[in-house]
């Protein structure tokens, strides 16, 4: 039973990682940029969720608004910071992104204080029994949301016109362009959807912990980078599997490796071992 509980906790965490990492891997797949500032958008999503819930009293409304606002800001970030750097050496955009991320964290701290924000009346905190284990409603909600969004994304890319164009562009930008795909539009869409999912993750984490802090993005940001490498940069399915694997490995690892390694290093220890054995990630194509 204990193991089952760990597994469920791992899945909850893994779902959150997946929501963050998918946006990151999509940006990498399209533009070959390691979008570190993505985690800043994730934190922004958390802040929006708490601020709007406290003002309106509805978490559902807050979640929706947060996703839309952050999605738009994601597009702005692309326009201002990445578009001008696309033809520069790859580390140029990476360093700019790190700079932006640090600046964002600092702005959160300066505006909302170092101790962060909490819900005035945290919703969805009642405990329910599910398959014999105790879970909070918000934990169930976060799994449901993760599954819903990821399924929605996969339907969208399979069946909608713009979704198909998007997938084609990620696979082969030049080919897609020659078939008349508007690559610029696809990039904006990419940042909108990726940032939206990060905001969803940020909102759910805010709810799970009843807390947002300026530095809440630090650890997930680097962990999400580790995850997308494990998943084979740019590979969405691999990223999904890697997210869940890391979530579960951490839940189990904290119990059994807790004395020698701290929880947040597990992903990286795993990553470094994998990279040494398979430099292109676990699920790379070819």
């Amino acid at each position, binding site marked *: 039973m204990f193991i089952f509980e760990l597994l469920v906790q791992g899945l909850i965490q893994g779902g959150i990682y997946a929501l963050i990492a998918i946006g990151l891997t999509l940006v*990498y797949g399209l533009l*070959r940029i*390691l979008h570190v500032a993505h985690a800043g958008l994730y934190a922004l999503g958390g802040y929006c969720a708490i601020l709007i819930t406290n003002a309106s009293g509805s978490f559902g409304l807050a979640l929706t608004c947060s996703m839309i606002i952050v999605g738009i800001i994601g597009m702005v970030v692309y326009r201002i*910071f990445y578009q*001008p*750097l696309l033809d*520069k*050496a*790859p*580390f*140029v*955009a*990476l*360093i*700019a992104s*790190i*700079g*932006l*991320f*640090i*600046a*964002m*964290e*600092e*702005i959160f701290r*300066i505006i909302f204080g170092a101790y962060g924000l909490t819900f005035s009346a945290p919703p969805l905190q009642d405990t329910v029994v599910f398959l014999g284990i105790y879970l909070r409603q918000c934990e169930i909600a976060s799994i449901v949301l993760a599954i819903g969004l990821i399924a929605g994304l996969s339907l969208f890319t399979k069946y909608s016109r713009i979704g198909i164009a998007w997938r084609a562009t990620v696979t082969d930008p030049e080919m897609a362009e020659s078939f008349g795909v508007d690559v610029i539009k696809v990039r904006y869409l990419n940042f909108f959807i990726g940032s939206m999912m990060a905001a969803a993750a940020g909102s759910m984490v805010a709810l799970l912990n009843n807390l947002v802090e300026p530095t809440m993005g*630090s650890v997930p940001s*680097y962990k999400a*980078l*580790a995850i997308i*490498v494990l998943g084979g*940069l740019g590979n969405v399915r691999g990223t999904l599997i890697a997210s869940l694997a890391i979530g579960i490995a951490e839940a189990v690892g904290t119990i059994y490796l807790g*004395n*020698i*390694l*701290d929880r*947040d*290093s597990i992903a*990286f*220890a795993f*990553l*470094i071992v994998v*990279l*040494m054995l398979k*430099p292109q990630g676990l699920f790379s194509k070819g």
Partner: protein
Amino acid sequence: MEYEISLLTIVGISIIGALSLNMILGFCGQISLGHAAFIGVGAYTSSILTKSGVPFLLSLPGAMALSCLIGIIVGFSSLRVRHDFLAITTMGVSFLFTGVVRKQEVLGGEMGIAMIPDPGWGKLGYMVFVILLVVILAIFSLYLKRSWMGYTFDAVAEDEDTASIVGVNVASFKLIAFALGTAFAGLAGALYAHNVKFIDPESFGFIESITVLSMVVIGGTGSVWGVITAAAVLSVFPLWFQFIDDYKLLVYGTLLCIVMLFSPQGLSGIVADLKGRLVNSKEGLHAAD
């Protein structure tokens, strides 16, 4: 006077840290986002050595050696992975370092190590020692750039495949860059530990890696003078103006963005650009004659 002395000591240590990263990133073109971890290895090594009775001057080579050894191991990863993958791997090294150190009782765990022995030279003596090392390292960096090793680093930094097709043993040169850079990072760490006399895992976290990276990038990767200037300015301003200290990271972050957007070659790029314009306008004048 006391204040200026401690200021100069801190500036000197920052410069050594930045010049050490410059050897890896600037000279050899290998991105490292975990440099503070190597500074940390040096700091912990020399602290433990001196606390167990080893003289300060002997603890320095010890710190450099261990840091260098771990640097070579990480350097091996640069042979397996490149560019983006290397960035993430070295970032991982940074997190692994703090993650592991935090859990080790021997290393003081979360609490860190306090009461690190003083070398006993007084504040002024220590400052002079640090400045002396800065000068030596700066001269060494300038020399390295002119040597055939520096020439080869240029080639490796620009294009590894082409370098190997003209007979360069790319792997060895990359390892040497990591070995040199991390050894001097270890030195910076040891100097830091004996200056502050207290260290904990947080002093060598990812943010510190980015701080060192900012100095190198804002100064201009590869430019010894640029990096020295940027390291001096970026470490002294927060101390001079207390109000900046609160906003230090905001300033670093914003500067990183601005520099990347407008002058990826940093200060040295701006200077070279100005010089070029000056020469051009002079030539323009001559042409007008």
